[in-house]
């Protein structure tokens, strides 16, 4: 199954769901960052401005910049995005600590918005399943 953030038929629904989610809006307040999401060799950039997701851009060119990246294998994303994820896949910190995903780049920003990013995962789970 294609990971939701790489599925062109679901990208608009994902962006819309995040922008209408009460918890995401609260957690992402003041956030203006670009986040690179990667599954195996496929990538997209989630652009957030003032707490709103303005664009989910598939296959970004190499010259694009981002604040931080969240990368995992497609197999790991499958587990992360299960409606009830297995042990060590419950969130970004769990996945990172146990080596199931990598967060790289500006870690200060990544951790400042861990709540928003984990809520983004929850919303992805709803659309993935």
């Amino acid at each position, binding site marked *: 199954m294609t990971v939701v953030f790489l599925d062109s038929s679901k990208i608009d629904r994902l962006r819309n769901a995040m922008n209408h989610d009460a918890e995401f809006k609260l957690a992402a307040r003041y956030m203006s960052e670009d986040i690179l999401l990667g599954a195996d060799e496929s990538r997209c950039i989630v652009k957030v401005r003032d707490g709103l997701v303005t664009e989910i851009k598939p296959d970004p060119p190499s010259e694009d910049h981002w604040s931080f990246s969240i990368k995992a294998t497609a197999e790991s994303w499958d587990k992360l995005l299960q409606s009830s994820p297995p*042990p060590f896949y419950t969130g970004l*910190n769990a996945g990172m600590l146990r080596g199931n995903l990598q967060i790289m780049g500006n870690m*200060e920003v990544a*951790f400042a918005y861990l709540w928003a990013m984990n809520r983004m995962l929850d919303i992805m789970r709803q659309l993935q399943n």
Partner: protein
Amino acid sequence: MLKLEAITGKYGFVTVHGVDYRVYFEESGEGIPLLCQHTAGGDGRQWRHLMNDEEVTSKYRVVAVDLPYHGKSLPPESVEWWKEEYKLTKSFLIDFLVEFGRALGLDRPVFIGCSMGGHLALDLALECPDKFRAVIGFESAEFTPGLDLIWFNHPRISGEFKFANLFESTAPSSPEKYRREVGWVYSQSAPPVFRGDLYYYSVEHNVTGQLHRIDTSRIAVYLLCGEYDFASTPEMCRQAASQIKGAKYIEMKGLGHFPVVENYELCKAYLTPILEEITKIR
């Protein structure tokens, strides 16, 4: 008529390493003393379900203290704490718990602790086995290095990081209201406290190669770990228990790093037989 819980709270004074501490503690029930240790960056509220469980409090006097700097226990008045980095040391933690129990007149209490408290269960069994009749450690391990991270006390990262981080330490099947409560309590600790406690949890607590010295004829040892715990994993806890002759280990399915908070009813199914068994210890 105001509906009341059975839990009562009091303040008391404990002197440790020459410093006077005014500390807050709660208690409930009568019987065998059961001394509860909260997690790093947490406080005694984490034991509220246990302390309101009549099946426990009919046999046990359950006591939960907020360590100094935690919950309603303020920093000591005689220390200029604002000029030094807060760090919880192993010697302070052991000496504080032992002295608090002694001052309160607890006779060889049963110790129960989670996470940092689970690690402490092992340290107490090694360092002062005759002061406790049993230890129950949730999420215990020999050594959990690498978690003493600057992000847990950073001027540009708010308590929301702790809220999110500890929420995902719970099992997805636990009731959401209690999973959120775990995060809420964590987001309330003073900025340096969680990381300062992790100095004990992730640096000073290291009993690698020592656990075979624990004599379970002097102190009973029970270790339990939640299936979803990614900080001190079931394998790490099982490995610790395997080195203690006579210790009992249980993996708790469907629970995470905070079993007594996130899903007490499920946790109770694992804990009740242990508490029953301990009532037979003299």
